[in-house]
């Protein structure tokens, strides 16, 4: 009685439901395209071709995806511990400071493969410390982490603006950014991998951070489902009372989870800063932290789902840019609407179609939903 609808098999839970949600988002988006007087099917073709049609498109898609994998993982780690980290944006932004310090100090002395690990540590550390403060306030003072992390986004933004128009800006420059990094802080591109498959790439920013993101996705999986720490985080996330009962310290687990989350957010900054722009510029995160929330939700907080969702959002970013170029009636804002619809259906309305799918599954094959069709022995 208490659970009228049983669980779906994993493939439906992680594959079918997101697919349905996504399709509905695109259908609704199609109507919006129709409304501005363009052909939605042609728009869809341009979008997909723009993202995956050519080597350059694929490289750009994966470059954006890299950013979203980091922020998605960051949100997911906190969410497994029952914490809604909205501060990914700010943690990533302020991590740019750590990277700037490392790169500006060592880019003339060290090769990239020595600068990179240092920058990873610096980015993770700064991100983690930035997340630590709200975490501490939550654990010790009960200040709600949603509120504090949002406020910390603003503080991070203000600090970075101050630094980038002041101390970090080269004296002669007019642009609010650091000087460009030298070769010792430029990450190698990965475009050659796509070229292996025969595609041509003119210039695209896909770089080794993509591999780092995949490694992190694996490590997050390992952490959440295979370590004692992950077990404790999930226990606390599902039921703080059960965690107390099990002897898990609330303070320790909240601080740890948020620091890991902040570290992952911080690493996101490596991708645009060292992989693409080769400087730290104002507003380089540009909303990727918030996209991470959608990516994490859509990926059902699972690293595999997050990688897939990140690629989807990478596609929307890259294909959307192409679309805005090809169809003048569809502006940048239209793309944002489409992305918004995806977030709406995949994130906020995630459970809208679930009951129907479950009912459908249950009526076709009871065993697939894990029930033994009203058997005896309830004990």
């Amino acid at each position, binding site marked *: *009685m*208490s*659970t*009228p*609808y*049983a*669980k779906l098999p994993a493939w439906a839970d992680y594959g079918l439901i997101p697919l349905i949600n996504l399709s509905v988002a695109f259908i609704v988006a199609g109507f919006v395209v129709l409304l501005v007087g363009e052909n939605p099917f042609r728009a869809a073709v341009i979008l997909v071709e723009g993202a995956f049609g050519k080597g350059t498109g694929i490289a750009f898609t994966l470059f954006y995806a890299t950013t979203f994998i980091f922020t998605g993982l960051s949100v997911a780690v906190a969410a497994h511990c029952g914490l809604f980290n909205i501060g990914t944006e700010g943690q990533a932004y302020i991590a740019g400071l750590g990277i700037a310090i490392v790169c500006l100090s060592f880019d003339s002395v060290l090769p990239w493969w020595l600068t990179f690990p240092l920058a990873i540590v610096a980015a993770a550390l700064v991100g983690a410390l930035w997340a630590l403060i709200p975490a501490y306030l939550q654990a010790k003072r009960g200040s709600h982490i949603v509120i504090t992390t949002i406020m910390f986004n603003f503080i991070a933004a203000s600090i970075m603006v101050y630094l980038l128009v002041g101390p970090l800006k080269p004296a002669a420059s007019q642009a609010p950014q650091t000087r460009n990094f030298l070769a010792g802080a430029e990450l190698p591109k990965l475009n050659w991998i796509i070229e292996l498959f025969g595609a041509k790439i003119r210039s695209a920013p896909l770089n080794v951070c993509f591999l780092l993101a995949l490694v992190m996705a694996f490590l997050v999986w*390992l952490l959440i489902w*295979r*370590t*004692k*720490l992950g*077990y*404790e985080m*999930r*226990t606390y996330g*599902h*039921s703080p*009372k*059960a965690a*107390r*009962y*099990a*002897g898990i*310290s609330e303070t320790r687990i909240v601080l740890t989870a948020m620091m890991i989350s902040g570290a992952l957010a911080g690493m996101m900054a490596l991708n645009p800063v060292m992989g693409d722009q080769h400087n730290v510029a104002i507003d380089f995160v540009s909303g990727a932290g918030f996209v991470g929330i959608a990516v994490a939700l859509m990926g059902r907080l699972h690293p595999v789902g997050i990688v897939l969702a990140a690629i989807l959002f990478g596609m929307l970013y890259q294909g959307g840019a192409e679309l805005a170029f090809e169809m003048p009636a569809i502006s940048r804002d239209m793309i944002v609407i489409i992305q918004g619809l995806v977030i709406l259906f995949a994130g906020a309305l995630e459970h809208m179609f679930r009951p129907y799918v*479950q*009912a459908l*599954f*249950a*009526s076709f094959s*009871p065993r697939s*939903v*894990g*029930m*033994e*069709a*009203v058997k*005896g*022995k*309830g*004990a």
Partner: protein
Amino acid sequence: MAQAAIELIGINKSFGAVRANRDINLEVTRGTIHGIVGENGAGKSTLMSILYGFYQADSGEIRVGGEPASIKTSNDAIALGIGMVHQHFMLVDNFTVLENIILGAESDALLKRSIAKARSELERLEREYGLEVDPDAIIEELPVGLQQRVEILKALYRGAEILILDEPTGVLTPAEADHLFRILKQLKEQGKTVVLITHKLREIMAITDNVSVMRQGTMVATRETAKTTVEELAELMVGRRVLLRVEKGEAEAGAVKLAVKNLTVKDSRGVTMVDDISFDIRAGEIVGIAGVAGNGQSELLEAISGIRRAVSGSVMLDGKPIDLTGAADPGELRDRGLAHVPEDRHHVGLVLAFEENENSILGYHDDPRYLKGPFLNIDVIMADAKDKIEKYDIRPGNPRLKTANFSGGNQQKIVLAREMEQDPGVLIVGQPTRGVDVGAIEFIHKRLIAMRDQGKAVLVVSVELDEIRSLSDRILVMFAGRIVGERGPEATEGELGLLMAGVEQQEAAQ
């Protein structure tokens, strides 16, 4: 033959693959009290929810007063004169009695006129049925017995002729329950029809005229109460013979394992919940703490198990003190041989979203046995979980299944298996069989007695007086945070009931 108030004909209801109600036929005679019994998940609540318009039946017919009725919402049910008193009260805590009663039945756009009208109507109802409640009292300041009365008044105010009560005595003292039964009898005399859902067979025997038994979604029997016995009903419910009272030998009490001395505990609002309590538990005995829910038992358990800080007093485990400052690590207490089966298994004892095997190590996840460095040793955990599933007959026997998908009885077995298999010296158990089916109750009681016979010290806190009496070697009764009496297992229910209601104390005070 008196006219039927309600007839249910061929009711079917499925939730996905689960057939909660299968071809149910039920006839409730007007002006009678009709009991419906069955284990958890037998489909009682589903059936009543269909009658009250929360769910729609997949097929079948409902007749109210002989007329076919279509009940799509609870408003339809109310219009047909059906009222429901839920197990968990649907009251707004910070509203007055009167405000709660008119809630959703306001007769006027302006509250003032609605209230004035309701007040005179309420006075009439209170007089007629002997249901006195102060209309201006705030709900949260009323004892549960009176809150329940408000629920009944709410239904009557809406013109209910047929009253459905879902597990109404779960939160009441024996005296309050008796009072409720008197009210129900009075309602019956006034020609109202009462449907009583319960799993307490004694209540069925005490006040119903007819009783229907449900098992696994079907209606297995309807009997005239006078012509059946508790044993027959229990057997019908479970489908096999059940021992309602577990056999046990004499206790051989040994050394003191747990000594509680002058323990005082306050809740988060600063109200004293445990007031200067002292008692001992010896090896090889079961000490039961009886009392109506909310008299400090929960806080006592939490303090002893290191979850809640105590204000003063001491607890000695094997002669060594337990840290009562609230900084105690429940994990450390486990290492010292104190196992705790908490009252609230849904939020405390288990993580329902976890797989069964994950819950089988909750609290013991620090044990090096289950770890490989920082990693969980999945092979060992799974083997361990399978072992416990077998020993405790946990069904379905799949350690990968989500814990939420187990029945209440099996969830409780998961907790018990985890705590008992650590071979603790002291086991403290809160509500060992709350929401657990009759068959599993027997199993759990046998296990607890086996623990005792192995020389463990067992503390059982339960609001089920029957359970306390059948398990305990010594019974302590808690009332308003104090232990108001100690009795042997031979104490009568009446005697304990008076203690639980704090009667002796009040008399002493006068």
